[in-house]
């Protein structure tokens, strides 16, 4: 008799537990649905807000000055150093406010070498700053809203030295190599309009005789 009572009590406890678990799950699932619906509603509102900015995109671009540092390679002719190669990073910061999805592309336009006592005056125009990797441009796909990509461009500089004026051995000299022009272009996929912005960075190198 007692055993029967105990087993009945156990059964009731088990049944109650199961019912509680089922109800809890049903409530949580309902809550999950509610939150998801609310999230979708918010998304729709955000979409509406972003539409109010409408079609024009705003593009702001700037780049820090870049120091490509000491030479990684020296080229010499008849024992006189003629040319050096430098590598380094250029950090740019872009801000785009756009109302549609689009692609932002950044590429190097041209380089204007500055005159310097350490650079060969005859080959000043041959001084070159280019992309160090295979990438000719950097592309970002941007979602509507404010986007702030920070591209890092790996640069390579080919420098022709003035063989008559080297810095003293053991000393390093930092000087400006010139200005690098870059262009940022934002293509709005929906309107197919392009907003472009030119910006530049001063490129420095450090010269040190081996």
């Amino acid at each position, binding site marked *: 008799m007692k055993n029967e009572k105990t087993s009945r009590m156990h059964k009731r406890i088990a049944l109650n537990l199961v019912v509680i678990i089922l109800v809890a*799950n049903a409530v949580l699932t309902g809550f*999950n649905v509610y939150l998801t619906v609310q999230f979708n509603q918010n998304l729709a509102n955000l979409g509406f807000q972003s539409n109010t900015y409408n079609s024009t995109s705003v593009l702001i671009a700037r780049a820090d000055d870049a120091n490509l540092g000491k030479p990684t390679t020296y080229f010499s002719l008849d024992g006189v150093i003629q040319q050096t190669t430098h590598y380094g990073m250029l950090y740019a910061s872009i801000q785009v406010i756009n109302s549609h999805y689009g692609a932002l592309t950044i590429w190097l336009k041209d380089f204007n070498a500055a005159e310097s006592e350490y650079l060969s005056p005859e080959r000043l125009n041959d001084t070159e700053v280019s992309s160090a990797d295979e990438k000719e441009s950097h592309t970002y796909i941007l979602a509507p809203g404010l986007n702030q990509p920070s591209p890092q461009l790996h640069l390579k500089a080919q420098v022709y030295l003035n063989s008559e004026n080297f810095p003293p051995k053991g000393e390093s000299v930092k000087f400006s190599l010139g200005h690098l022009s870059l262009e940022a272009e934002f293509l709005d*996929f929906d309107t197919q309009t392009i907003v472009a912005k030119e910006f530049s960075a001063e490129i420095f190198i450090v010269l040190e005789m081996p």
Partner: protein
Amino acid sequence: MSKMTKTAKGLRTRLGFKVYILIAILIYTVVFSIVEITLYRSFRIFTWDLGVFNQALWNTLHGRFLYYTADIGIYTKTGSLLAAHFMPIILLALPPYAVCPTGETLLVISTLVVAIGALPAYEIANFFLKNEKTAAMLGIFYLLYPPLQGVTLSGFSAESFAVTLFFFIVYYLIKPDLKKLALVVPLGLLTHEASVPVIAFIALYGMLYHRSVKNKGFQASLVILAICVPFFFFAQNMRIFFGWTGSPSLWHEWALMGATSTSDLPLKIFLNPVGAWNSLTFDGLAKLAYLVVLLLPVLFLPLLGLRGVIPATPFLFISLLSGYRLYYSLEGHYTAFVVPFIFLGLLHALRRLQGKPRFRISILKLTKLILLACVISLIVLLPLIYSQYQIFNVAGEHDNIIRSFILRIPQNASVLTQSNIFPHISDRPDAYTIAPPIWSPEYERIDKEILQNLSKLNVKYVLLDFSSESSFVTTANLIYIDFIIPNWNEYGLVGAKDGVVLFCLKT
């Protein structure tokens, strides 16, 4: 109304408790087909495989036997699906697919095939327990068993056929019904080359079950075992025949112990036991959780009937030694190699308990308890799986935009797109996609090679969705950067809306 009641009663009398199984199969097929089609239409379902199967079967209907493009140069030189995996069983889906050749049809077929497994599950349970009511409950339990939902929700796959055929093989082997066994064993072998070791272990189980050499079932098991060994090599050779590149899986599942394929494993375990231990303990918590989730809905009872779990050992062995999470999670179709044998282990345990007079709870009550545990597990686990696919977050408007862009692509034009859109445009010979580059750096490298090769093919349309899920967005980004930008002068922007962008080759 009375006519319907009479028919129902008639069916009940004629079919016994089996009628409940048939109703359950019908409900399961309808419910899960709706769920899968909803996922499919929201561009979210396991799209890689579905796109591949849709393209292979569509091409078969149009004269190019099981041809697909997604793995050309990776696993297949020729584009034949049989080079990637030897699974001619999928040709069984061809007649119904021919009636309505779409991804939705494939999803309904695979759901039905998985659901049919409840029939042999019921028959085996009845055979073991000699109680139709309990067997019917266990048949329904099988359909509610959460690891089975992984097979169903992963869309169309050869594993959907395997999971059901394994059951039929076990049933006809223990019965034994040699004629029907002679039909289902070859079908089982044709599901996937990975099914061969499982069927060999079913044969081992059959030998242990029948014991006596004089028993027909024992002899049949021996024959199956003898067939499996050469068939495994035959399947591998067929893959080579159809153009397999010989490339091992790009997932590098057993890289921790230096093995490149399953056939490498035994030797590597012997030569590198430390590596094997590291592999086993890698992601240990997830592996433990996997085992718990497999056994919890059956109240860990298969541990009392380990003999039934024997055929699951080949897959458990390779999955627990791997570092590839899909092998030891409920998502994906790989549980197909385990589910039938957990069920078989459960039946062994129930029969064992049935024979013990000291065990006070009746088997019927225990089965009810298991069913309840299974329902609770299903309620708890399914929302977790659903949340992954964001079933409640179907963005109807955005999906309509994708569909409207798909409609702008002429039926026979070549298309390149990301893998979540691929199943919807793969009903053409020249449909292309690439794997999400976030899968691995090796996939990214191969993707870039594929895009470079596609540049030479003058693909007419490129459809990208930059506002889909992150893995698909990375694919869209890669296609834009490595395909559209290098060919910028050749492609024009046809239209764009809400992140969906369509490019067309300029004429």
